[in-house]
């Protein structure tokens, strides 16, 4: 039993918060071991002795603040899931936090939300069995943007800062889009939860937050190695478009989820291309041990994207391998992945939700043809 028990470290300079969280998480004691530290130095000392699975840190603390602590955790223990729990609303502080943390929770945080986030973070490892790979992916601050994309955003921010143009620039770039969705996946910035359209999320954040992020280095620059980034991104955009079109025909409520899962379906390849020491073989998933598909799903789950999108990304190439809690979305993304490249391509029957009838598949092929031309 104890081997599957996960350890979580909470760091806060207010002892009452730590005590209350321990009490509140007591019912989870079978699966969760909760430890606490009153500050950054103590936390680092504790981690050096005995590693944990998840660190949840306050932002504003004397001596070392939460962003500094998490940056050091990232350096020394990259595998640990890093979460900020803060009542801070000062923009520059928040921007620093977005660089160091995987996820953000705002105080006061609903006990259920805290429990769910912890449980989800603890379950992450199952998505990517290779622990060396976990380390490399979890250390990523962001996915690189396509060369030129960040400059275009900067130019727009310096000029008229049109919300529509900013939204389009972000929505078309997997690196920027995933970063924006990462920070809007919780209510940290006051944006409503559950937005899956990166363009919409960008509009909600507003030019001022983007400007602060750009100035604080929190928007990703380019930096993929050994990968034709532009061609890779063009494929991602096409898949996103096709997946959205399929969803509109099958279940319009899934359109945003299908589009983002389409845009990020292959993000594991980009993730591995931007971590040091990756080889062509690991990136293509040819060395047997690791799969870029799993790395992509792990990364998105780590950044707090919804389970449905994570599952669609995880299943788009080897769908039979995992239980499908979102069969239609998984089918849409698998089909988009194949048909965006070749409208006549072979679909994996095991990957298609039995509820999807052959006539629908034929319609999807025609839609894919229409998007391709």
């Amino acid at each position, binding site marked *: 039993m104890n081997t599957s028990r996960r350890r979580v470290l909470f760091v806060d300079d207010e002892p009452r918060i730590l005590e*209350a969280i321990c009490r509140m998480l007591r019912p989870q004691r079978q699966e969760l071991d909760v430890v606490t530290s009153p500050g950054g130095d103590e936390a680092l000392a504790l981690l050096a002795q005995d590693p944990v699975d998840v660190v949840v840190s306050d932002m504003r603390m004397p001596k070392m603040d939460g962003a500094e602590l998490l940056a050091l955790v990232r350096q020394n223990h990259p595998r640990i899931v890093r979460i900020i729990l803060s009542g801070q609303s000062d923009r520059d502080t928040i921007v620093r936090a977005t660089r160091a943390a995987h996820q953000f929770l705002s105080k006061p945080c609903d006990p259920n939300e805290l429990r769910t986030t912890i449980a989800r973070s603890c379950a992450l490892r199952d998505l990517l069995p290779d622990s060396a790979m976990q380390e490399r992916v979890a250390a990523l601050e962001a996915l690189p943007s396509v060369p030129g994309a960040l400059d275009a955003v900067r130019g727009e921010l310096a000029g008229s800062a049109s919300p529509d143009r900013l939204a389009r620039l972000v929505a078309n770039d997997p690196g920027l889009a995933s970063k924006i969705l990462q920070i809007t996946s919780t209510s940290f910035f006051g944006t409503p939860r559950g937005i899956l359209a990166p363009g919409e999320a960008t509009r909600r954040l507003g*030019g001022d937050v983007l400007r602060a992020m750009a100035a604080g280095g929190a928007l990703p620059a380019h930096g993929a190695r050994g990968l034709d980034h532009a061609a890779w991104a063009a494929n991602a955009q096409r898949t996103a478009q096709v997946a959205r079109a399929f969803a509109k025909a099958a279940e319009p409520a899934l359109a945003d989820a299908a589009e983002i899962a389409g845009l990020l379906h292959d993000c594991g390849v980009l993730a591995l291309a931007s971590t040091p020491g990756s080889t062509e073989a690991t990136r293509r998933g040819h060395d047997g041990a690791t799969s870029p598909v799993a790395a992509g799903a792990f990364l998105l789950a780590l950044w707090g994207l919804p389970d449905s999108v994570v599952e669609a990304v995880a299943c788009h190439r080897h769908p039979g391998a995992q239980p499908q809690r979102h069969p239609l979305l998984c089918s849409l993304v698998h089909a988009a992945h194949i048909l965006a490249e070749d409208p006549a391509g072979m679909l994996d029957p095991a990957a298609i939700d039995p509820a999807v009838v052959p006539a629908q598949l034929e319609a999807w092929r025609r839609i894919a043809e229409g998007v391709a031309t």
Partner: protein
Amino acid sequence: MSEPCAQRTPDDPALLAAVLQALGSAVIVLDSSAQVVLWNAGAERLLEIPADLALGRMFGELPVGFDWEPVNARVPGLVPLRQVRIDEVHVTRKDGGQTILAFSVQPLVGGQDGCIWHGADVGERRSMESQLRQAQKMEAIGGLAAGIAHEINTPMQFIGDNTRFLSESFTALASALAGMRVLAERCDAVAVEQALRMHDLPYLLEESPKAIAQTLEGIERVSRIVKAMKEFSHPGIDEPVPTDLNHAIESTLTVSRNVWKYVADIELHLDASMPQVPVVPGGFNQAILNLVINAAHAIEDAHGRSNGSGAHPIAKGLITIRTRIACERAVVEVSDSGCGIPAAIRDRIFEPFFTTKEPGRGTGQGLAIVRTEIIERLGGRIEIDSEMGHGSTFRLLIPLHPMTEIIRRRRARSGA
């Protein structure tokens, strides 16, 4: 001295007269008895009295629309012995409009010879200053609200976690106790039951869950207010950004509850399918707040004022807020069941400093700010329906696609 041809020298009386007439401000010369001896074109325009009517008459008896009180207080007798400044004289124009004049009054040599009144229209400047002060105040409140929110959120975090813990502990304790009672029945059931009653156990079992539930609800409510406070003030954003107007209206009502809750019920008909509308969030919230305050005051004027103690209950009025989309515009309506706006003043209510409220209840800037925020900053429109004794509706029409270029150009012009 006896040159045949008049030189254009500073002493030339014709030149001086021309300068006096050309001045935009009012120049009035009084003799030692406060009789008007000079009244330039500026005085004719600002005080709306032609020179031929004014000359030779006592200044204090002219039908100028002055608020004489500050004037008499500063310059008794109207002819001072040393220079006096009167910064703010409120003037009601013949068309009913309001403005503010600032005067400097300078004695002529020795004071026995009378004095010069020099007056300028500072209404527009004062209005801008007042709006700027208001904006600075909002900015300061915004910063403060963010700080307070942070201060409140820390204790709220552990209050919430502890209460959740108590709630779950209590459930566990109660079931443990139920199990013990079953066991106790095998022993001396009566004695056990007596002991439990002595400690008021049935009541505790009944009431504790309710107390905890209500505490959780109260925590939820405090969190909501703190969040609304943060959202209402929106420090830092000074450009139109796509905004959920329905949500903004709800936040504004949450923070202003105290203004309207004793006076009116609020009915919301918010179109849930509204898209995001580009507004300056802080400014839009301020505009809605001002309309709600006015609506509450209009209802007070119609129904009478309650002192909030409940000792003299007064029938509550109704404020209705509607949102919808029509013709590429977001429509926001704030209606009240108040006293209505007299037709005679309907055109003037957006003028700065125009107010029908007694001092302390209104600054006369409320609707001027609504106009600045909606018309000038967003290129929108404001419509008013009002019926005396039945109430008023203020309708804000905000374009969904503002001419971004125009706004940008305006910003570039005023900013850089």
